[in-house]
């Protein structure tokens, strides 16, 4: 069996100093070589690993015969943003983990192939066809992947769609969270542009629950979709956490990505740390650590309470972070942050792994007396996020469950009739493709509802 083709990467030392994309992706020749590795299974297990069941052998077949338009069409049937998912999906736990080739050797590089076609599709985009299946007005709250997908599908079925976004730029986490070196903002922008071209209206600077209330939206719109994400940062509630120099990953990444603090003349300030400790080991933590490095930090550490095996980030990001020189301090948890008027260091304790919890992950247990001090001048808390309670606080009829997630039925309808929800708002922090899948399912329910009217 031939080895898997690897995408070209920027040199690790060089890329640690710039914000350009790390992975340069496949060129056409390599893409076709890689596509030829796929054995076109009759029963493609890879599709079972994809949360939206992309027709993987289908698009790969078209790719290798250079029918890129057809390949794009197949991808877009289930995945509106292939250029994004190809870059950010955790393929090694989703599609690629199930690929038959992975059993004996290396799986097909489905993500890189998807990215190749996604990029082609952006350059050769044709406006989506609009069918008059349903009639009515839909308000979409939030312009992250869930909201964008729901908007596209509702519009394609003939509905009038307005997206309300609280920030001054659309895109949700794709815009304010995931950094340029992993997902160039122009890709997100061109996808949003294509939505505008089919007549989706995007109203920025509108906070639903403050500027406009849900009950007001219900007077004007036939259905609402809440794709407000999980934007509330989690802190450890430990001593010293409010010292200047302690950032939430959300704040740090928002200052850099959305507000452009990495550019020389940005109006939004950011203090550039010399020695930066990032707490956590998910994608958010890797993004923060690698951003700190690119902003000129001399030393960046990932501090994580479990072991390498449990790190939730995409493998590729962990590898890339390591190549770039990020240090991993594993089985270690912060106890308190120290400093007089700003961060001077962090007291940590070593951890052991105990028994497995419900999810099968071994529980970390502090080792008594193993505390020690890590010197640093900045700490970034990347411990995940839960849904922001702002909308619910303004509309208590919306029922919520554990950690504030919105409760929905099998059609993704909330406890209020004609108000649907999906994405991180109903699942807690998850993935881009799951949010998109939810946006699509909700759109289906909305179209169904407004068809029968």
């Amino acid at each position, binding site marked *: 069996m031939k080895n898997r083709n690897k995408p070209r990467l920027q040199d690790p030392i060089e890329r640690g100093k710039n914000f350009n994309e790390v992975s340069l992706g496949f060129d056409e020749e390599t893409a076709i070589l890689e596509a030829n590795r796929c054995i076109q299974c009759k029963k493609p297990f890879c599709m079972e690993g994809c949360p939206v069941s992309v027709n993987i052998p289908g698009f790969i077949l078209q790719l290798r015969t250079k029918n890129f338009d057809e390949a794009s069409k197949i991808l877009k049937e289930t995945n509106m943003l292939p250029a994004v998912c190809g870059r950010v999906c955790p393929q090694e736990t989703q599609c690629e983990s199930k690929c038959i080739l992975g059993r004996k050797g290396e799986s097909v590089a489905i993500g890189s192939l998807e990215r190749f076609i996604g990029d082609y599709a952006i350059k050769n985009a044709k406006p989506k066809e609009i069918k008059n299946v349903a009639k009515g007005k839909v308000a979409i709250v939030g312009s992250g992947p869930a909201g964008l997908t729901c908007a596209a599908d509702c519009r394609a079925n003939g509905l009038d769609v307005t997206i309300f976004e*609280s*920030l*001054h730029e659309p895109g949700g986490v794709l815009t304010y969270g995931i950094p340029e070196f992993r997902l160039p903002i122009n890709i997100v922008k061109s996808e949003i542009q294509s939505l505008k071209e089919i007549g989706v209206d995007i109203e*920025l*600077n*509108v*906070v639903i629950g*403050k*500027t*406009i*209330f849900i009950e007001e939206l219900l007077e004007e719109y036939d259905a609402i979709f809440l794709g407000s994400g999980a*934007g*509330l*940062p989690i*802190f450890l*509630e430990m001593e010293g*956490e*409010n*010292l*200047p*120099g302690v*950032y*939430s990953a*959300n*704040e740090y990444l*928002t*200052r850099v990505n959305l*507000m*452009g603090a990495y550019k020389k*003349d*940005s*109006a*939004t*300030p*950011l*203090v550039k740390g010399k020695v930066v400790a990032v707490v956590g080991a998910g994608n958010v933590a890797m993004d923060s650590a690698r951003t700190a490095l690119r902003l000129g930090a001399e030393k960046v550490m990932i501090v994580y309470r479990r072991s390498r095996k449990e790190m939730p980030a995409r493998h590729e990001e962990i590898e890339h972070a390591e190549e770039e020189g990020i240090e991993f301090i594993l089985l270690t948890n912060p106890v308190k942050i120290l400093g007089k*008027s*700003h961060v001077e260091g962090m007291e940590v304790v070593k951890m052991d792994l105990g028994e497995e919890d419900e999810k099968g992950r071994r529980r970390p247990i502090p080792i008594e007396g193993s505390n020690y001090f890590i010197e640093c001048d900045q700490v970034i808390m990347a411990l995940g996020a839960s849904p*922001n*309670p*702002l909308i619910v606080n303004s509309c208590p009829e919306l029922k919520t469950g554990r950690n504030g997630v919105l409760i929905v039925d099998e059609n993704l309808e909330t406890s209020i009739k004609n108000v649907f929800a999906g994405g991180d708002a109903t699942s807690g922090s998850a993935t881009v493709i799951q949010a998109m899948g939810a946006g699509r399912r909700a759109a289906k329910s909305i179209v169904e509802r407004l068809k029968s009217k």
Partner: protein
Amino acid sequence: MKKYEILKKNKLYDNVHEYEIYAPLVAKNARPGQFIILRVDKDGERIPFTICGYDKKRGTIKILVQTLGYSTLKLSLKEEGDALEDFVGPLGIPTDLTKYENILLIGGGIGIAVIYPQVSFLHSIGKKVDVIIGARTRELLMYDEPIAKASKNLYMMTDDGSYGEKGFVTAKLEELLKTKTYDVVMTVGPVMMMKAVCDITKKANIKTIISMNSIMVDGTGMCGCCRVTVDGKTKYACVDGPEFDGHKVDFLEQRERGAYYKEQEQEAYCKLRKTLHQDHYC
């Protein structure tokens, strides 16, 4: 009318301007005590200002801005007819002082801009309150006339004695408390002034509400930049506030947090002033 157009710009003092901005969606649900966040231009930072007045019919919001640094200087260069890049709100929890009878409001510096709409709102529902306003010098003591009209008693203090009485607002507060009592005190101004007021009212056992001017980014609870420790717990000024029980706020922590970007702010400010040929202060 353009979105976020400056319909009126009033120069109150050398470095204080009042703007009336066209933002009908914000005006529709605005209430006293809430704030907005704006961006002056495309690369601008997001900066918060208290809503000083609103006109639901005209669809406008009034804000009062003291030129302090880079972004407020940029804003001061905008004129009537210009439009701001972004303008979002109303944010934060509205104030409700209507349940109190004997109310004392204390504003210091630009904090007077926050006190003023409260005074006029309470006046409009038939409540007359006592007010102390204070500033470094006459130049900065704004809104004295309309506040005088809408309040029961107005006490004016300047550090240099150029107007009203010489001294700090706290001196006046201590003096008043010798003969009067209040159900509630609300104070807005520099962090250390609010702390000093709270130290006094705590001894006198008078409930005190403060308004926290934390540094903010999104203003919707997403970033945690505006963290304030209240009663040992972390709160977000943008969604849990901006008002808090002043006797429970960790003011010293706030002072440190507010100064984190000082160096960079100063640098950006000086650079902009140089390009505007106003660099004699840098």
